[in-house]
């Protein structure tokens, strides 16, 4: 549900301060909202362009920063195509935040293993900021991330930064290499073979394309994670954000209202889980 605004249907005006090109198809929009904007990591917003339309995104910035919001947008269709044309100074709308984010208080005292792929690193980045803030209460944070090519990797400086933080480890792989890349080659799940975690005292977070979420979850279960230790950030065509329109229904759940973050235990019987 909306936090600071009285009207949950009305977008908050925000000015586009900067556009960061992350990869050929992905840009990060730095927005300055007219009012303080409060969200919890993992919650999503509806970002709009007046007269064009809106689309759901999970902010990629820290929830501790309330006067500036970063949203990473992959160009996939009409609305996101128009967004990619916007220049600094443009006005956008932010509706939300909506849904249930990551229950980070439950991560206290644990090792957090994060598996991400493609644009799924956007919500994870926000989560990482939160985990960095609470690192005194955590045992360890491990990020395993895969992108199709080295050029498709977003937030490249994030990895070296994470590896310089005490208790944090970050690993990258690519599906297809180029002449410059000298790191691991293969799908994101391959990185899990090398991580060392105390599974009994650990939670796993998975966010990325459905196919990665599926294979990632299977590999985590094989490693010994229980269903309720695996957190999945689902994307299901969220539209109204309020559990009214039904676009994002997944079994008995409205992803926009009951999610987008679920434990695997909650949704494993949903036939639409990996679609």
């Amino acid at each position, binding site marked *: 549900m909306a936090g600071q605004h009285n009207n949950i249907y009305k977008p908050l005006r925000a000015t586009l301060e900067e556009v960061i090109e992350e990869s050929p198809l992905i840009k990060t929009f730095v927005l300055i909202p007219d009012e303080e904007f409060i969200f919890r990591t993992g919650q999503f917003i509806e970002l709009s362009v007046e007269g064009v339309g809106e689309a759901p995104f999970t902010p990629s910035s820290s929830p501790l920063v309330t006067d500036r919001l970063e949203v990473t947008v992959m160009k996939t269709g009409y609305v996101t195509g128009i967004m990619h044309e916007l220049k600094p100074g443009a006005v956008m709308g932010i509706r939300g935040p909506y849904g249930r984010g990551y229950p980070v208080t439950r991560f206290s005292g644990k090792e957090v293993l994060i598996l991400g792929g493609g644009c799924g690193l956007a919500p994870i980045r926000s989560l990482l900021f939160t985990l960095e803030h609470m690192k005194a209460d955590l045992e360890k944070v491990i990020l395993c991330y895969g992108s*199709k090519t080295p050029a498709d990797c977003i937030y490249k400086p994030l990895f070296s930064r994470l590896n310089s933080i005490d208790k944090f480890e970050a690993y990258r792989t690519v*599906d*297809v290499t180029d002449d410059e890349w*000298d790191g*691991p*080659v293969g799908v994101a799940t391959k990185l899990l073979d090398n991580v060392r975690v105390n599974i009994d005292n650990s939670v796993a977070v998975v966010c990325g394309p459905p*196919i990665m979420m599926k*294979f990632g979850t299977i590999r985590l279960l094989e490693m010994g994670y229980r269903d309720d230790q695996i957190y999945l950030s689902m994307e299901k065509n969220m539209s109204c954000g309020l559990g009214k329109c039904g676009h994002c229904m997944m079994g008995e759940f409205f992803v926009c209202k009951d999610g987008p973050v679920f434990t695997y235990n909650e949704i494993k019987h949903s036939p639409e889980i990996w679609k």
Partner: protein
Amino acid sequence: MTVEINSLKQIRFFEKYTDEQLGKIAAISSVREFRVKEIIFDQYDELSEVFVLLSGSLSLGITVPPDKRIHLGSIEEGHLFSWSAVFYPYISTAWVIAVTPAKVISIDARKLDAEIEKDCDFGFKTMSKIAQTISHRLSDTRFQLMNQLNL
């Protein structure tokens, strides 16, 4: 170069083996080194060694007729490769080439077969680990295929 039990203990693949079992592996193993771009084995080669990467980076791929070489992924330190050497007809399904100077443990596959026959516990552990390697390779390949096909 001979292999010490203590150095096997540092490698994830050899976790859960007893010292006695590690001794059996060490006795049938040696360390081999490969230069950059050196082919460790080619696709369709008949294999007689199972390898575990100690250091360096290797590339694994397949050749599609007539001669297109497709890179499928890298092999990381501590991982087993050349599993075909344990299963009849011992023909490799892929090629492996050194991307950086690489050091590997080479295990004599026929002698390993003999140890597996003799010691059920050793055999079960070894075959479980090899099966897991193959299972991960298969799962990763499916994932990769679906990614490439944008499914």
